């Protein structure tokens, strides 16, 4: 049935386009327009500074540890600060800081990956969701940072669940500083296949927020209330 309507919708569109009653000359150029070029910073120090400034303006916390040991301390401080007993984390292979799972476990935190059983197995699915909902903190890596908007690019994939950056009230992201790119356009240019590989790519710009009641800013609606980004000096 829906395929039948496909032809009918497309035919209606073609009929309208053939009428060309559009008085607008802007319809004329048939070639795809190319965007205006724009000066963007490319120096790594400038990119990093821009990313940090933008993210802080969005109420994100940014840390620049000197080495991996200090990075781990920062992570554990955040975990202790929110009294986390349960955490959701990406698989070790996708975290640019080695030993996260072990360190969290040593700190008395139960670490879960966000694997959900198939929904056909309803009781197991519901039980697992209830378990994941207990998590106070989510730990992820990031594929990139966007300097001009202070955003993180988080792709889904095996070992990289969506729920780690969504369900818990606190999100810690580990980002190698070399992965900061100037803009979203630059990100797509350097990762041309990213949406083919991941069913879900999300750009996260600060903690969850709303202004639906009288335009009063409130943080932490459905997504995390806190976003901590730990910048790592050396890429994995």
């Amino acid at each position, binding site marked *: 049935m829906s395929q039948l309507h496909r032809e009918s919708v497309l035919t209606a569109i073609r009929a*309208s386009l053939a009428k060309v009653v559009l008085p607008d000359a802007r319809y004329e150029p048939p070639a795809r327009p190319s965007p205006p070029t724009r000066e963007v910073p490319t120096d790594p120090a400038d990119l990093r500074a821009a990313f940090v400034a933008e993210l802080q303006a969005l109420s994100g916390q940014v840390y620049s540890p000197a080495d991996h040991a200090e990075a781990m301390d920062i992570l554990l401080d955040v975990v202790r600060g929110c009294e986390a007993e349960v955490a959701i984390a990406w698989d070790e292979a996708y975290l640019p800081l080695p030993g996260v799972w072990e360190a969290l476990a040593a700190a008395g935190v139960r670490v879960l990956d966000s694997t959900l059983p198939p929904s056909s197995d309803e009781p197991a699915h519901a039980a697992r*969701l209830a378990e994941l909902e207990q998590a106070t903190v989510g730990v992820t890596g990031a594929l990139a940072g966007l300097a001009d908007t202070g955003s993180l690019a988080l792709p889904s994939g*095996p*070992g*990289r669940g969506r729920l780690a950056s969504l369900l818990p009230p606190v999100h810690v992201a580990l980002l190698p500083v070399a992965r900061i790119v100037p803009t979203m356009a630059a990100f797509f240019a350097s990762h041309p296949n990213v949406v083919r590989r991941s*069913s879900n790519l999300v750009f996260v710009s600060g903690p969850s927020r709303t202004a639906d*009641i009288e335009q009063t800013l409130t943080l932490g*609606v*459905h*997504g995390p209330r806190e976003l901590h980004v730990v910048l790592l000096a050396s890429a994995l």
Partner: protein
Amino acid sequence: MIPPRVPFRQRAAQALADPALRVALDRAVDHFTTGRARAMASLPGADALRDHACRVRAHTLSRLDHYLAQFAEAVEAAGGRVHWARDAAEANQIVLDLARSQGVKLVVKSKSMVSEEMGLNHALEAAGVEVVESDLGEYIIQLAGETPSHIIAPAVHKTKEQVGQLLHEKLGIPLTHDPVEMTAAARAALRRVFLSADMGVSGVNFGVAQTGTLCLVTNEGNGRMTTTLPRLHVAVMGIERLVPTLDDLSVMLQLLARSATGQKLSVYTSLLTGPRRRPIDPGQPGEPDGPDELHVVLVDNGRSRILGSRVAEILYCIRCGACLGVCPVYRQIGGHAYGSVYPGPMGSVVTPAMFGIEDWADLPHASSLCAACRDVCPVRIDLPQLLLNLRDEATRAGKSPRWLRWGIRAYRIAATSPTRFRLASRLATWLTRPIARRGWIRRLPPPLSAWTDYRDFPAFAAKTFSQQWRDRR
């Protein structure tokens, strides 16, 4: 959509007489306009980018059949299912059939104007399926049994005192005037819904033709929840909402949030390409979470007809809402007085174009044609011109008031001969002299009272221009 029984003039008068509405609009609307101005100033070359965005929209629409077919193929190649609906009833039926065939009892929704246009919630509820809105503003108006009054801030017409009272009554929380406490209560209530819903219904901000990607932006995270937790994700989307490539998407995203809320980018910009990926080999891991099925409902509902009309340009619209906040009419009467789910300048074009000028002939007149909307439109839609085109159509359809037609006829008789014009202007001066006070006329008899009920009319000069001209020579 069913047109309101009460005429626009009366609806506007009711809105103007509502003190709480005035408070709510005064408190909120300036945030939008100042935020937008600041955010646009932060974008280097913003005007050139808006020109470009306009060209991208024009290009896409001039090849809509091609891009739509390409998009549908790409969605299916990524494992999604595409459904085509010619009108709202078909679209509702498609969603309803999906819900029925999969035994869905609870649907959670993230904000979608197309679904409002379709009346989807009613259709689902009538079939016994429970629907809960998850955008905070939409949730508030759903609890209140109302419709959105703004396309991106649905509860902008409510004061915090009203929202506090509503949540107190509906959720049983202590009475509060603190938006933070209200938000926490809504979060807790909606968390339970997210965890138990069988189907998530979302709108689509942009579809990327090349990759079959759906782009969805939210600030609260409800869009991510809706498209991640329930096993079924159904996205409803107007057929015009396409961009050719990811590069074009990045152009639109630089403008959308800036124009809408004054942000450089919304907090969550999700790019969804198909459902949760299954493992390629049984031994390998697939994606750990996400919906098992993705359905995209492509909704025409008049759009293909608009494409061939004199207001085709309105299809460029990316639903940012910037034209609402700057419109002097919207700022006074709010969204509900328009009687349509699409209010403000864009709504005054979309509504008659989509649902028929016969029933909505007064909306193109809900504008002073000051062109503030055209100045802020990120894709440079010439909204005042489109409103004029629709006024013209309304007149041709015989929908203009009789007194206006007579008035125009009388004016034509007077204005097409110098002698008659001089006579008429002298007559006007003479007739209004007794009622003019300090250069203003405050009250005129009907039908001219339509003007003086809401604003003063400048008194005619004691000497007409041609008299003054003669005197000076």
